[in-house]
């Protein structure tokens, strides 16, 4: 989750009458996680969830806290937006590349300070990664307004077009940027299906940006910058305006005056951005109290919403018309309003005592039948002296090779794009992992008697089949077929009062003549044997190992578990 640094003195200054500890205590109750408190630098590090991009700056967080502390309630408003008269023209060539652009200008007397620049940059990064979907959907350019000569043209150029990109001294062609600069390599794939590349230029043919890759160097913001142009390009109109609205509120809270721009399409249509009109939604009467389990009056409901920086009015039919800021992209269903009310009410005020869990409905809980069977098997094996182990499902292919499982690769299930040989395939047999466990415990006392109940995976008739499997091993210097078979027979007898048969069968991983299939009611349910010496060596063991494995799904099918009864 993304992290924001909030200055403790910014908190104190915003709430002069409230103790800092109390402010910090309330931070989690607006849906933020406190990651750490750095008192030396006077900073609290706060994690926010990607559904709340407006929390990506200190100002956004303070805006929400002001509601909870009732210092400012209801919808936040950007006052006095003036028309700048600046124009951005959209060329039709961007249509198939990245068709949307919107922008606004912002001015104030004081230049940006270091803290503000870093907040803006980290906000830009968080918006890129979250709602911008790693710049694929939307991306942001922040420019020094004073270096721009309007009108702007949002157009495309071929790959040999060149300009000086941000923080470079020389011109680069688009091709070079995509192939040689880190940002180009990282984000170039977004434009890969195009031979024309989006460029925003001013009337002097200076490049402001090459979205979504990099800005031009000319309009870079510096410590003396006090006039900004903010632009968002996108493949999705709603997303572009959402992001622009978040940025508008942020700059307004930084003390900037906001100026709108005219965005003119190649068809001559023109809109003014930013679009900051509040959103609204109707919530039916009684819904909120029902879903939250509260009993609030309409007045209280509205007050709670206002503490969450939203507002509402009651319609004649009793329904509630709710209003929320444009940047609240996370609200699109009445349940989202219910959460705003819960937060405005204060989660800490809910009666969460266990008595409130006690709806008058009765349920009788029970275990899944496979849990019952597995526990019965566990109990018998425990009585026979076996220790249960657990292993991972994702294993290295080497492990099954070491166990001499000659598998048809088309039956294997592997991990796509595996980065390490440790995490290559889903195990198709349970025994190899148990052999690994034995090899990790060679310094422990023998005899070692282990078992595991776990899943195994294979491809079977164009289906991925996962099945529960039981593996049982005995390791010591005198173990042999008779010993392990007597465990198998005891298990089947003591657990199910059933017999199995073991017709001779040879396996690569068992000693020839010392192994068999396990048949239950004439059906193959597993195998048993003394492990082949080379396999034992492969696992670096210096003692004998005998083994059986049973496919529990097959066994459970054959046992007809519906017949399990009390009487």
């Amino acid at each position, binding site marked *: 989750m993304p992290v924001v640094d909030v200055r403790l003195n910014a908190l104190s200054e915003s709430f002069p009458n409230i103790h800092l500890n109390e402010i910090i205590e309330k931070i*989690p109750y607006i849906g933020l996680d406190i990651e750490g408190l750095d008192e030396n630098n006077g900073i609290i590090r706060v994690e926010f969830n990607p559904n709340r991009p407006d929390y990506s700056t200190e100002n956004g967080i303070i805006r929400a806290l002001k509601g909870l502390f009732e210092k400012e309630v209801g919808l936040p408003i950007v006052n006095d937006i003036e028309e700048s008269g600046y124009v951005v023209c959209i060329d039709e060539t961007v249509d198939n590349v990245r068709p949307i652009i919107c922008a606004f200008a912002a001015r104030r007397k004081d230049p940006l300070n270091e803290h503000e620049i870093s907040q803006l940059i980290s906000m830009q990064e968080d918006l890129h990664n979250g709602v911008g979907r790693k710049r694929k959907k939307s991306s942001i350019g922040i420019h020094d307004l004073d270096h721009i000569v309007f009108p702007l043209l949002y157009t495309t150029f071929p790959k040999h077009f060149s300009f000086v990109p941000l923080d470079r001294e020389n011109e680069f062609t688009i091709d070079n940027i995509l192939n040689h600069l880190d940002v180009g390599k990282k984000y170039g794939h977004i434009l890969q299906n195009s031979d024309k590349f989006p460029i925003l230029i001013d009337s002097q043919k200076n490049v402001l940006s090459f979205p979504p890759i990099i800005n031009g160097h000319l309009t870079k913001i510096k410590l003396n910058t006090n006039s900004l142009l903010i632009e968002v390009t996108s493949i999705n109109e709603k997303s572009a305006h959402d992001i622009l609205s978040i940025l508008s509120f942020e700059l307004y809270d930084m003390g900037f005056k906001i100026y709108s721009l005219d965005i003119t399409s190649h068809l001559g249509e023109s809109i003014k951005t930013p679009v900051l009109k509040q959103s609204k939604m109707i919530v039916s009467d009684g819904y909120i109290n029902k879903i939250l389990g509260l009993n609030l009056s309409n007045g209280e409901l509205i007050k709670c919403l206002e503490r969450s920086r939203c507002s509402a009015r009651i319609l004649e039919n009793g329904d509630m018309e709710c209003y929320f800021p444009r940047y609240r992209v996370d609200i699109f269903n009445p349940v989202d309003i219910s959460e705003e009310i819960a937060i405005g009410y204060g989660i800490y005020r809910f009666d*969460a005592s266990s008595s409130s869990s006690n709806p008058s409905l009765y349920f009788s*809980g029970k275990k899944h039948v496979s849990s019952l069977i597995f526990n019965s098997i566990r109990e018998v094996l425990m009585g026979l002296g076996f220790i249960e182990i657990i292993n991972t*499902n994702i294993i290295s292919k080497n492990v099954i090779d070491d166990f001499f499982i000659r598998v048809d690769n088309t039956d*294997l299930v592997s991990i796509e794009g595996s980065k390490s040989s440790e995490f290559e395939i889903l195990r198709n047999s349970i025994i190899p992992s148990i052999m690994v466990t034995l090899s*990790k415990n060679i310094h422990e006392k023998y005899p070692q*008697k282990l078992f595991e109940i776990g899943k195994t995976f294979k491809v079977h008739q164009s289906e*991925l089949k996962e099945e529960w499997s039981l593996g049982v091993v005995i390791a010591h210097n005198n173990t042999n077929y008779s010993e392990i078979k007597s465990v198998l027979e005891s298990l089947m007898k003591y657990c199910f009062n059933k017999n199995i048969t073991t017709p001779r069968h040879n396996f690569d991983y068992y000693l020839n003549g010392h192994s068999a299939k396990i048949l239950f009611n004439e059906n193959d349910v597993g195998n048993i044997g003394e492990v082949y010496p080379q396999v034992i060596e492969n696992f670096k063991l210096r003692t004998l190992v005998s083994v059986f494995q049973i496919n529990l799904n097959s066994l459970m099918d054959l046992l007809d578990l519906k017949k399990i009864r009390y009487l």
Partner: protein
Amino acid sequence: MGINANDEERDRELSSANLAKESIASLHPIEKNILSILYYHKGKWITDNELTKESNLSIDQIRRGIEWLKFKNFIAVEDGIEFEISLKESLLKNDNFLLPERKLVNCVKEGKSDIVDIIKSEAFKNNSKEVYSAIKFCKNNKWIDFKNNRISLLPGIEHLSNEEKFIDKLIRIGSSILSKLDESEISSFEILKKRPNFIDVKKINNKKYIISDLGVSFFKELSSRTELQRKLTAEHLIDGKWRDLEFEQIDVEAPLPLLAYGKKNPLIDFIDEVKEILIGMGFSEIDGNFAQSSFWNFDALFIPQDHSARDMQDTFYLKTIKNIDSPLPKDDVIKNVSSIHEQNWNYTWNIEESKPYVLRTHTTPVTIQYLAKEKPEQDKTFLVGRVFRNEKASFKHLVEFNQIEGIFTSKDANLRQLMGIQTEFYAKMGIKKIKFWPTFFPYTEPSLQSMIYNDKFDKWIELFGMGILRPEVTVPLGIKNPVLAWGGGFERLAMIRFNLDDIRELYYNNLAWLKGIPKCLL
């Protein structure tokens, strides 16, 4: 002061009398063995070496037995400095070693009576010094007359000299301790020590023991009793002899080795305990596959197709050589889900993106398929099962771990009930301090996370997340009533329970660790 000192003394006497009484009841065979030897030699100091030889006990056993007996005041112990006397090694190697005086006698027996002949003889090889010394000792032994350089034998030659006897003893027993020699042996030793190349003397530190008066009286009392049996046997029982027998007191306090035993894996055992709690709360267990289609793992849960959680960096996608089909729902469900995505997330939903198999990143796809299939009006279910995250394993992150998840659905289900269920569950686990914070999950709204206070670590720990399933999740699947859902990683609880700093230890299968975890946490 004086009175107090007397009291102390009396106390000491009393306690040693009690000790003696107890001792009778619990004399270990080792103690008995040692005590009997010391009793046999009563009045004499017996060394470690001697005790070893006579008792057939190991050094360790003797040390232990001596400690016990000393504690009971049955014996006294002294750190004796001793001198060990033995023959020079060169001399031991010579099978036919004789003292010079005996050699001289033998020479004369062979017929050489002239001193010059004797010096020249094979036995003395011109060593006149040796011959004169031999003459001196022969005279001391009254073996010869020596007149006019001629030697004649006396009848005393048939008797061994004291020195010869002493040397024979040393040859026989290897070495001897100075303090154990009798008077004549001591004088022989003194004489031989003065003569070069016969005797070695080594200083040794040899603990020695002597039976005390208390030990003597105790041993007498012990021996007066019927012969003790080491243990009760089946024969004693069957032939009825046990009626006439007394049995040895065994050491009932000594610790013994732990037995090998079979046991459930501690993590599974803990999961089972928690399952029982949930069952007691009316939840029923459900079960489902680890491998899920992207549809059920993501799309059905309203996670947009361009969401970063769906990246290969976070999720394990499965690959097979043969083409396989992942289970997708009926067309109308797909249509419902896709249109809700397109309406709310503003993108074009692509069915291909929902087909690939993934290892479930949470247990919710199992729950949601259950709900979509059963469409219960009201229900309480739970599951605990393996989930998979493509993360780097570390002390606090596992690639595979268990998630616990529960749902409650009914017509009137609400957020407060959900918080109440958590409180009830935590209370059953002994957790009393809980707080709830708002948070975000793509498929629940409102969403909360719970924090629990852990006394052991003296801090708040983030535990289960929860929320009400979004209508965007339930409505397309035909689920009518609100569904309260909660869940989270299980291993986090296991770390607290088993005192682990490294979560990976749960899956190391270190047998010593597995055996060492007690069944009950107290």
